[in-house]
């Protein structure tokens, strides 16, 4: 693959660091960022939708990995609702989502059919859902 090669000592090639890496400065050079082949055997990606309370729609809250649908529901409870009661969860394999296509062609993503639908997003959940 064509990943950027790390500096010979495994460290950054230059003294260029960006504090935007969230938990502190991270190097900007010598870090591979290319799209590679998805490793074999990784659990598939699921999209998670949660109904915060009765009367509300299910809302997309994020995504996670699971081996099958049942595991995805359990993981969704643990990750996105901390098993809050009275909450309804939907999960769907990301690859099963059909999306309307934007008008323009998608030169960056069009070829990677299995990756087109990797759209995890993190909408706000209503305030009355604890731990969300």
């Amino acid at each position, binding site marked *: 693959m064509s990943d950027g090669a790390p500096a010979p000592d495994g460290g950054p090639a230059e003294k260029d660091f960006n504090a935007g890496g969230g938990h502190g400065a991270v190097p900007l050079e010598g870090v591979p960022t290319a799209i590679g082949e998805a490793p074999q055997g990784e659990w598939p990606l699921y999209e998670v939708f949660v109904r915060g309370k009765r009367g509300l729609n299910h809302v997309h809250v994020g995504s996670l990995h699971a081996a099958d649908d049942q595991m995805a529901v359990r*993981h969704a409870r643990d990750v996105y609702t901390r098993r809050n009661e009275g909450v309804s969860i939907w999960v769907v394999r990301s690859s099963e989502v059909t999306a309307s296509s934007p008008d323009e062609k998608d030169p960056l993503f069009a070829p990677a059919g299995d990756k087109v639908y990797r759209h995890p997003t993190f909408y706000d959940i209503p305030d009355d859902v604890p731990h969300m």
Partner: protein
Amino acid sequence: MTDHDNAYEGLLGGDDSQWAFGTDFEDPLAGVDTTIADGVDPAGLAAYCLMLGDDALVYSHRLSQWASNAPDLEDDIALANIALDLLGQARLLLARAAAADPTVVPVLPEGSPVPAEDALAFFRDEAGFRNVRLVEPEDADFGVTVARLLLFSTYRLALLERLRSSNDTVLAAIATKGVKEVAYHRDYAARWFLTLAQGTDESRRRLLAGLAVVWPLRAELFETHPVEATAAEEAFGVDPAVVADEVDLLLEQVLSVSGVERPDVRPTGPLGRGAGRDGRHTEAMGRMLAEMQVVARAHPQGRW
């Protein structure tokens, strides 16, 4: 979107309701009527609460050791949830024990601010703990964890379901909350049990090895201790012998769906005439407590 530019605002005061665990020590039983029912012996109630509380406390500790070590991020989070549920149950049960009979709480130096639940958790010696031995050992891998969690949660769920009708309103309330939690723990364990049993040859091998490790400690769960006999007689607790058949049937279902035979292993015998509920534990227990209690014991006057 809230104003994230002001994350620091409120740090030195302000609205405490946003804090996940409050801003100061709060008695877990604050506001709860802790009156003891007529005909219930407070010392017996306290001793019984320590048993169930210590089971949860010690097992929560072991499960918490998975943090940052689990097979995947999702299960890291799931195992932490289970550990947190049990830790919550432990706090309530230890607090109930202390409220019922303050003499069970170790005496600390004059003026120590250590609350009763922490005095019980961190200042009792090994022989004072009343948990079953099943929850003590450290797990060698996820296969042992799944097997142990299946046994433990099946047993505990059966107890808590009955405990919901305890004549001690506090225990009944703790059990009602706990049933929902432990039902999830059992489901988690059973699904992983089936998955590992029918996954790969390697996962099946490890699961069977794990089951053989924990199975011998099963018999101890159902032996009626005098404290439990009294608890059942006075209607605040459950005699574990009465749930033995039900637990066995449930385990049999999981094993049979998974295509797993009962391990042919001999039960771990008692130590003299006692076992975990008498304060006689495995070798793992002392090491675990040494680690768990080290900071608290170094600061008997400490505030945390």
